[in-house]
């Protein structure tokens, strides 16, 4: 039995230190914060059980799953549609506790649940120039009236598969990619935001 506990690493922390990048003058145009504080799980409805999953989610989490690529959230739990009868679910704050097990229990027999909490790098991106920076890689129309609060898309950024979600009424976006690609995603984002000045905040840890 070893003495020391395992110290977790966030996907980005070996790639970039918090601080200011690119243009150094004035307020940063783009703000980035790594969100390593979320429990993530993929949910795939079992054959023909899409409706039953929606039913179970309603009763367990009081959420009405919208059709299509949208995110809906309440009380720290967010479901994002990522494919027909498939969702990526995130839990934060108090909702994290035993979340994957609770989710599995709520959907038992109706969906396959797999823990993905460690499989993704999650960057929350905001700031006055966020759309200008994201336009340099996201081939999706992010106009606030088009990509509305809760909109989500699975797309390709700098040859990296990325799920982008607008997580609220404010222009705050969540970029999610495979953990092993955190460095390449960061390289693209830091380069793209350099002319506006980028501030990387301390990561939020679970």
């Amino acid at each position, binding site marked *: *039995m*070893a003495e*020391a*506990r*395992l*110290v*977790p*690493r*966030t*996907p980005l922390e*070996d790639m970039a230190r918090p601080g200011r990048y*690119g*243009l150094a003058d004035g307020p940063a145009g783009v703000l980035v914060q790594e969100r*390593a504080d979320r429990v993530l799980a*993929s949910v*795939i*409805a*079992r*054959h023909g059980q899409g409706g039953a999953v929606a039913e179970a989610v309603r009763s367990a989490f009081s959420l009405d799953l919208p059709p299509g690529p949208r995110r809906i959230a309440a009380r720290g739990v967010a479901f994002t549609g990522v494919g027909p009868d498939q969702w990526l679910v995130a839990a934060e704050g108090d909702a994290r506790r035993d979340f994957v097990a609770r989710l599995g229990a709520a959907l038992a027999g109706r*969906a*396959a*649940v*797999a*823990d*993905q*909490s*460690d*499989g*993704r790098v999650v960057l929350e991106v905001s700031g006055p120039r966020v759309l200008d920076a994201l*336009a*340099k*890689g*996201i*081939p*999706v*129309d992010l*106009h606030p009236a*088009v990509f509305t609060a809760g909109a989500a898309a699975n797309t390709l950024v*700098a*040859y*990296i598969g990325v799920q982008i979600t607008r997580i609220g009424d404010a222009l705050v976006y969540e970029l999610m990619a*495979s*953990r*092993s*690609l*955190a*460095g*390449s*995603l960061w*390289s*693209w984002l830091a*380069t*793209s935001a*350099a*002319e506006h000045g980028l501030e990387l905040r301390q990561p939020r840890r679970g």
Partner: protein
Amino acid sequence: MAAIGQALRLSSGGQIDRGRALGFTFDGQPYQGFSGDTLASALVASGVRLVGRSFKYHRPRGILSAGGEEPNALVELRTGARREPNTRATLAELYDGLEATSQNRWPSLGFDVLALNGLLAPVLVAGFYYKTFMWPAGLWERLYEPMIRRAAGLGRAAAAADPDHYEKAFAFCDVLVIGSGPAGLAAALAAGRAGARVILAEEDFACGGRLLAERQEIDGRPAAQWVAAALAELGALPHVRLMPRTTVFGTFDHGTYGALERVADHLPVPPPHTVRQRSWRITAKRAVLAAGALERPLVFPGNDRPGVMLAGAVRSYLNRFAAVPGGDMVVFTCNDDGWRTAHDATAAGLRVAAVIDARPQVAARVRQDSVGRAILGGRVVGVQRGRGVHGVTIVDADGRRATIACDLLAMAGGWSPVVNLTCHLGGRPVWDEARAAFLPGPLPPGMRVAGAAAGDLTLARCLAAGAAAGAAAAEELGFKSAAARAPRADDEPAAITPLWFVAGAGKAFVDFQNDVTVSDVRLAVREGFRSVEHLKRYTTLGMATDQGKTANVNGLAILAEASGRGIAAVGTTMFRPPYSPVAIGAIAGHHRGKDFRPTRLPPSHAWAAERGAVFVETGPWLRAQWYPLPGETDWLASVSREVRATRAGAGVCDVSTLGKIDLQGRDCGAFLDRVYTGMFSTLAVGKARYGLMLREDGIVMDDGTASRLAPDHYFMTTTTANAGKVMQHLEFCHQVLWPALDVQMVSVSDQWAQFSLAGPRTRDLLQKLVDRQHDLANDAFPFMAAREITVLGGEFARLFRISFSGELAYEISIPARHGDALIRAIMAAGAEFGITPYGTEALGVMRVEKGHVAGNELNGQTTARDLGLGRMMSTRKDYIGRVAAARPAFHEADRWGFVGLRPVNPAQRLYAGAHFLPQGAPATEAYDLGYMTSVAYSPMRGQWIGLGLIARGPARIGERVIAHDPVRSGDIPVEVCHPVHFDPDGGRMHG
């Protein structure tokens, strides 16, 4: 050197800022210009006529145009690593400190030795390379090609890497307006006022198009004022984006357009964090093409001399830049527009010596307050020259020759609509006889064409058509456009009777950039090149950086005349993207150097880097190849040490790169039975099994393991290389072949950090990490056990007893956030057992020692039987590839099969790729028996060992053959052996 003054700058007028003087050099000579100038306009104002030498004949050339169509005034801009060849001086925005150099001349622009090529003109005709240098063939590469390349050509690229950054960006809009002349501005205003999201893209740094160059009025005030008001209104609309310095270069599918924004080309060096250029992909629901028209030169002897300029360009230099291209002008025209140049020149104080109009009659309205002599029905047949134009030789309507002194000849051949972007999806332009122009044919979906680009060459019509197009585009998208009054303006006279060429002595140029003359076109016709496409390839008409923007229509017309057909029958070559040159850097954007493609890093990367690991790219991954210790300089020494230490004690390797798939559902067992050759539905919970997947054609696709974690829950691993392909394959099988099966699968490749622990002491090591309640004894956790466990006081993990090395070995998985900590914990716990990290090389050595197949053997040509894995093909069930694998051809006795190889002389090295030959046989394909797929130096055997595929496979074990490698080792006698070179009984693995 003192700067040459701006002797030919008007004292007032123009869109330049006389308060902001900018210094620049051309061929080392300092000059001055003003903010608002192009390099070309500043050279004009400074009296510079000669700016380059032509491609083939090295003829002196001057500035022809005032825009992006320029074929002559190509310069090298900047120096050193930023040197940029073939920059159009007419498009280069002047900045302080600009350095430009003329190109294609030696030793100097004024005296060019290769101008002697002009004397060789009789042999440098169309297709000369194909004719002149045919014999002897051997001289082509050594002599002719280098010689031609030195003589002909454009600028020199920089030798150093480009220090600037480029990027790509995406934009979306309702209406994309291409061009900001009268039609484009009117369209953008109409669509923008209606509430549509509008992007207005303009190639120039200033918006306004021809309005910047003309003395016209709109709504009763100078056009420039109307432009400024329109831009101010557009700039105030939040959903309108103005993009100057942006060339839309291509029309692509589904309403997407490619555009190049020259972000910092107008600055000496891009400011920090600013890109040089940005390439845009614009997705537009509707587009209004308002790209205007380009003026055609007239084709007559001497038409390429410095001092011969397009008439519209003369107006641009006078009106927009207040720069005087000459003091004494002759206009040669075949249309009403040429007369405008005479009027504007007179207004600017130039002397107009004569207007020569090829038409016998010209409307009185056009000739009003006529300027100089008007010679109707006349022709220019020659140009008198010294260092510039001295005068022109003309023939009048009665055939009388005369000479008129002048220093500037403005030529007006009519205007060609810029239809290029209408053609990129296959639409062919249509010849319009009345307007003597190709007009847009079938349009790309969602595109409208307005203004001069549609053949409406006059101002009032441009404004009206633009406004209508912008409004209609917005209305189609559901916006309501207010019925606004179109701006008031007059339609200027625009009658034309085209004059395609003037016969006479001396070269009459059709394509200035490629030095194609009238006689080249006629020669091509005489030699049978009647198709316009053949004409282009044979004469090079319309090729190179300007793509014939000023040349094409004249060339086609001459082809039509020479071949006795009409222009409509001859047709035109097709325009393809890009409309104008786009730097490769702008297309690559961010993806240079280490960002060429994304790199995947395994969880132990930072730790491995701290230890000084040498990394290797394996597919998208960067993996540790070996871990040199201080003092080790030879990779083989490091790798052999890692192998020995692993086999003696314990080794650890990051195998997180394996593809990992989580499968859940009632039918997972049945599903796996169908995709693997082996049986998985009978696998016990808590056990793993090696699996082989075949393609439908019976060839092996991938191998890996699947473990059963619960009755309806499996965990599959794939090879690193095929992770994506296998996932795709499984999704296809599930979604298309067997959708009714209750199987849910998802990639969990990045969720888990996975380490392979190999060596006789790994159980001891693991016992220090794994929580006490999990018994790792051999009978409690036997070979191929697979279980969920906890480590280090309750951290969730999975442990698999699987071996690729042939040792007692485990793979341990932990959520990836703990990967870094786990490898450090393994190293700490393993110190007493001699734990040694090993990289991909040692991994490879141990698998070759154990005779395991890997990517080199799973090469897309081998069957399971070929690889000695026939026993893994279940006969109790069906699976993908089973039927095809039974084909007789796959069972022929002399098919290449999998074996081991060792050199007969143990001191000799083996090389992968060597082909096997029978001893004494000649090295020809007829005797080829197969080849060496993998080799390694085996520290355990103390010699090189190999794996290979050889005819008759294992039946040859014990035979000797030659490993033939003419490139590296020559012929090496090898003995065919069993593929397992080390521990053939496998006792170590089960211990």
